[in-house]
């Protein structure tokens, strides 16, 4: 068997390991477009703060890892797939045959339609190459404008603040992390950041970026204000890397379309990770989640099905995020925004920046979001994914959501004997 995996992020790497585990004799190739050893984008924020060096971002720490797994690592960009002949072509003109192919090419930042966005000094924060540029420009005291306070924007926010730059954040929506937190908690994050000296402009757009003499950039905001910056970081969203897949005739939508075995519209091609429009556990619909845990779980399921045939169904991933904004830890799970006809309960403590919201359908937890909680948060995922019936505990939680750990122990750990 010849397996080819395109994309050497977490999805691609985990897939090669699973393929090897299940098919010890197969021929496995991992093709990635970036020059570094396979690394994790998620670790970039910690590279920016010098908590780790570049090698700390590597997905596998042993230099011989891929050799040990007999995985051939190729550093090229795949430009097209010939689905008739099961071949793919890379940048250098090489043609490779595959029996089964996995596309795990991830996503790339979108370029917002802002005049001047292509000026020198404007960077994404997506690759190690981007990170190196940011390190050069984000010196202590430098003026930095961060466009976008979504999940990725907020993660970078912390790293930049720790680099002691003068930071201004511009977000189009009315709050921070709008796809992870509601009005109340999103604005609690904002007030927390402001208390820490970060200038946050919500409901604000960057209208243009103008190059000034001396290398500075003038960012004009929709509020009429303007800020002169040494560095502008664009974190306004990402889109799947699927052009070559679409050109090759694969069905695409938000991402590459897959069935419940993570197989694409071509029987020999599978998809995983940020590029893949896989099933959402809660809604049953297919959506791009673009998070690390989903990428890894996709990879395992896809690789298993590639080797063993369709015996492993993908039941969907719970969308979940955890974020640390300058010491305030937030997390969100599943239907954190609630469901029609469902119940919800909320604990708000603005002074201590603590927040917990639970969303129920019947007596089953279907979503949650939290601020300021770091202990045992994983049980929120556990309760959602196991669809555990909470019975009488639901009413107790409606009165006091902070009793979630007791409810969890009582309802899911039968040996506990307090149900």
């Amino acid at each position, binding site marked *: 068997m010849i397996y080819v995996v395109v994309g050497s992020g977490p999805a691609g790497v*985990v897939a090669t390991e699973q393929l090897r585990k299940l098919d010890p004799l197969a021929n496995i190739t991992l093709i990635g477009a970036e020059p570094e050893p396979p690394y*994790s984008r*998620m*670790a970039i*924020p*910690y590279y920016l703060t010098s*908590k*780790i060096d570049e090698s*700390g*971002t*590597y*997905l*596998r*720490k042993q230099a011989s890892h891929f050799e040990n797994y007999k995985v051939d690592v190729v550093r090229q960009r795949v430009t097209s797939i010939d689905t008739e002949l099961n071949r793919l072509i890379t940048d250098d003109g090489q043609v490779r045959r595959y029996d089964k192919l996995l596309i795990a090419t991830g996503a790339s930042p979108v370029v917002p339609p802002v005049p001047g966005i292509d000026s020198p000094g404007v960077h994404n924060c997506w690759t190690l190459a981007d990170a190196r540029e940011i390190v050069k420009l984000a010196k202590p005291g430098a003026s930095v404008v961060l466009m976008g306070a979504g999940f990725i924007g907020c993660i970078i926010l912390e790293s930049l603040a720790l680099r002691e730059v003068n930071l201004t954040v511009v977000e189009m929506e009315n709050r921070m992390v709008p796809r992870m937190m509601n009005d109340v908690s999103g604005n609690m994050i904002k007030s927390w950041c402001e208390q820490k000296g970060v200038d946050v402009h919500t409901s604000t757009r960057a209208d243009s970026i103008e190059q000034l003499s001396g290398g500075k950039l003038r960012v004009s905001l929709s509020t009429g204000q303007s800020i002169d910056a040494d560095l502008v970081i664009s974190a306004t969203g990402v889109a799947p890397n699927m052009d070559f897949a679409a050109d090759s005739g694969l069905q695409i939508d938000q991402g590459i379309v897959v069935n419940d075995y993570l197989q694409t519209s071509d029987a020999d091609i599978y998809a995983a990770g940020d590029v893949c429009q896989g099933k959402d*556990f809660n809604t049953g619909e297919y959506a791009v989640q673009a998070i*690390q*845990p989903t990428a*890894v*779980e996709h990879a*395992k*399921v896809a690789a*298993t099905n590639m080797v063993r045939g369709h*015996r*492993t*169904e*993908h*039941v*969907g*991933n719970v969308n*979940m*995020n*955890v974020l*640390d904004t300058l*010491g305030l*830890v937030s*997390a969100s799970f599943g239907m954190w925004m609630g469901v029609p006809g469902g119940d919800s309960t909320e604990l708000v403590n603005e002074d201590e920046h603590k927040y917990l919201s639970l969303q129920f359908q019947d007596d089953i937890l279907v979503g949650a979001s939290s601020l300021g909680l*770091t*202990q*045992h*948060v*994983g*049980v*929120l*995922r*556990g309760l959602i*994914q*196991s*669809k555990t019936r909470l019975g009488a505990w639901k009413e107790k939680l409606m009165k006091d959501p902070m009793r979630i*750990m*007791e409810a*969890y*122990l*009582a309802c*899911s*750990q*039968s*040996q*506990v*004997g*307090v149900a």
Partner: protein
Amino acid sequence: MQKSLNIDPAKCTGCLQCEMACSLENEGIFNTSKSRIKVFTFHEEGKFVPYTCTQCDEAWCMHACPVDAIVVNAATGSKDVVADLCVGCKVCTIACPFGTVNYNADSGKVVKCDLCGGDPQCVAACPTDAITYVDANATGLDKMRQWAGKTDTTVGG
């Protein structure tokens, strides 16, 4: 035969010796808030429930880690956090459906039970045998693991 912690809540008196021993062993101080095993109190029923990682086979924490900072201890089967590699991203804390990997803001890294390398101090400290370290097959953890199975993202396989 690998061993695991067996917890019998019915025997627990809530004395918190396990939390103290865990904190001393792992953090060098007596501070129950630093313990990796937690005793939960059910006031209405007057019950105490010690709770920590089951070292489950699925090891969601380990697979979710973006930098390979959680590894299997070959001797005990425990899933250990390699502090030098952990960047503190907390993804493992939301991936673990048992909520047994927790973030420690002081160190900027996560902590979880590592069975003290094969000599669990909570077991040594427990005066009532509510926590014992026994052959894996014999433990009530099976039930907990069954529940873990329900948390899998696949069916069949």
